[in-house]
């Protein structure tokens, strides 16, 4: 199903100046404990750096956490950078503090799924598995 053996590969990213990393670290651990290969970028990355790393690491999914309110700037830049690298088969999902109407707007732009605060770990794992399955082989 995935491009690289049978383990789902995920890069978990923090973009921009937002330093809230409590949630992102929980998500990274949760996915790792569920048997996925997880890379965490650390803080303050640019969208271009994240996409570069995602392509190099040949991941299935990029998960971006953002709690600063800059999501309408950050996600479009990531999606554009993926297109520019012809790597838009890499799925983008998001999490953080994002108003409901902007979640909808981001999904229209191509973000696959957005999980907000207090999403139980099991649901996070199920969501990542689901979007990868839905994409199918690449």
């Amino acid at each position, binding site marked *: 199903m995935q491009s690289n053996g049978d383990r789902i590969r995920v890069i978990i990213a923090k973009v921009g100046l937002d*330093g809230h990393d409590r949630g992102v670290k929980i998500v990274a651990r949760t996915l790792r404990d569920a048997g996925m290969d997880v890379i*965490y970028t650390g803080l303050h990355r640019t969208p271009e750096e994240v996409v570069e790393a995602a392509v190099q690491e040949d991941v299935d999914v990029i998960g971006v956490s953002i709690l*600063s*309110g800059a999501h309408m700037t950050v996600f479009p830049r990531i999606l554009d950078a993926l297109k520019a690298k012809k790597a838009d088969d890499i799925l983008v999902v998001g999490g953080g503090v994002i108003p409901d109407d902007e979640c909808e707007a981001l999904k229209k732009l191509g973000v696959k799924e957005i999980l907000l605060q207090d999403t139980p770990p099991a649901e996070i794992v199920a969501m990542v598995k689901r979007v990868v399955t839905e994409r199918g082989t690449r």
Partner: protein
Amino acid sequence: MNDTTLSKNRPSATVGATAAQQLERDVASWEGTEVAKFISKAPERQATFTTQGGFPIKRSYTALDLADTPLEDIGLPGRFPYTRGPYPTMYRGRTWTMRQIAGFGTADDTNERFKYLIEHGMTGLSTDFDMPTLMGYDSDHPMSEGEVGREGVAIDTLADMERLFAGIDLTKISVSLTINPSAWIMLAMYVALAKRRGYDLNALSGTIQADILKEFQAQKEWIYPIAPSVRIVRDCITYCAQNMKRYNPINISGYHISEAGGSPLDEVAFTMCNLIAYVEEVQKTGMHVDEFAPRLAFFYVCQADFFEEIAKFRAVRRVYAKIMRDRFGAKNPESMRLRFHCQTAAASLTKPQYEINVVRTGLQALSAVLGGAQSLHTNGRDEAFAIPTEEAMRIALRTQQIIADESGVADVVDPLGGSYFLESLTTQYEKAIFKIIDEVDAQGGTIKLTDENWFQRRIADFAYETAIKKASGEKPVIGVNKYVLADEKFDIELHPYDETTAKRQIAGLNKVRKERDNAKVAKLLDELIAVAKDPTKNIMPVTIELVDAGASMGDIVEKLKTLWGTYREKPVF
């Protein structure tokens, strides 16, 4: 019980040996009869109970539980070891400072909010800055895109600072500036503004957060590597000690350690570790602890576990007093009394049924007051959505006013002092804090362990445990994993973000750049480098000259990056 046994032989703080033996027999018999009989019919809700921080909770507490607590450790308010409060009269004299943090958009936007809050009875100001300002980027830097004026107010130059406090007499109200890696520049702007207005610097009261170690550990706002970052903090402390007698040059903060997921014990213990690192750094300049310690200030969260939080506050006051006297040789009592600002726990607020956040905040605020806070911020009910609206802030302020004026709790000092449970928990906290300090000392100290991610890992571990407990329902969160409303629709008006903010802010910045004497700024920036290269010099005076000459925060920060480089974390999860 008789008086002779009480005074001669003291196995505990409140009962003598004979009385203690009797009490022990009573407790055993009570467990064997009344309790056993009751439990056989109606079992307790859980096999064991613990605080949110993991401290075991017994069924009930008696005088026997004070065995480890000497009476003098409980003491009296305003007297060593300050367990019962830093001042002898506490809120009977003046209630705590009601200090609601505010900041968004441009300086003009925030100035308007400040005036609104003052009009509604707020007694101290607290300023939230946007991410670029916090990280030392000018508003037109590429990293600032999408962030200008969003989470706080944008400040690039002294001109912004002048508008932020326009029409507010800074000698009449204390001002807190919540900023860290770029804090010294903000402090320089505050001093430059005060000088322009002709204020006596010793008349200014307020606080700048400037606690960089907890940034590396928890909040994750940084610019330079650890060593030069700590040197900047040292310079803020020594500058204020010599020039601003009433100003707190640092707010050693546990709040962010908690919000990043750390346990309540780690919250207070890590602040003590950080305190030790800063004091040692300042002492290296030859300054005696009594010359600066009276103005060291602290900042803690009040979380949901009501009694644990109160014990936490009382314990950390006692630990601080002992550290300052015994480890650092403080002689002045003012160097030994811990004063703290408190904020209710933002991460405890929920989106589901958000109205009930008012109740959460009210209970947390009450624990801060019973714990003896000097100032308090209560969160807005809508903070799980966005920064708070005016209405949410007014309700939050009214919550404090109800505690102060209606509840009666402010009329007696440390009303929970002497509670068997609370005193026992306070002492357990004290011992656990000292144990962590010993562990950090033994492994090479705070700065080394910060660099090695020791603190960061402990915080991430507790955060993960908490998430698992929330998911399983072991940690109930009303509206989230218990008493959930199906198909809840949020009908809530949020604080809007003005999309013109960045444009307005950058226009102002460009105006300053055009009108200032660029040659003078360049010369001062070279001087800044020379000062930075010499660790015996203080970075504050040249920074004050720089901001007065119109240098932006970005000018100063970028120049020093050429000397010091930047910090990059080694991420752990």
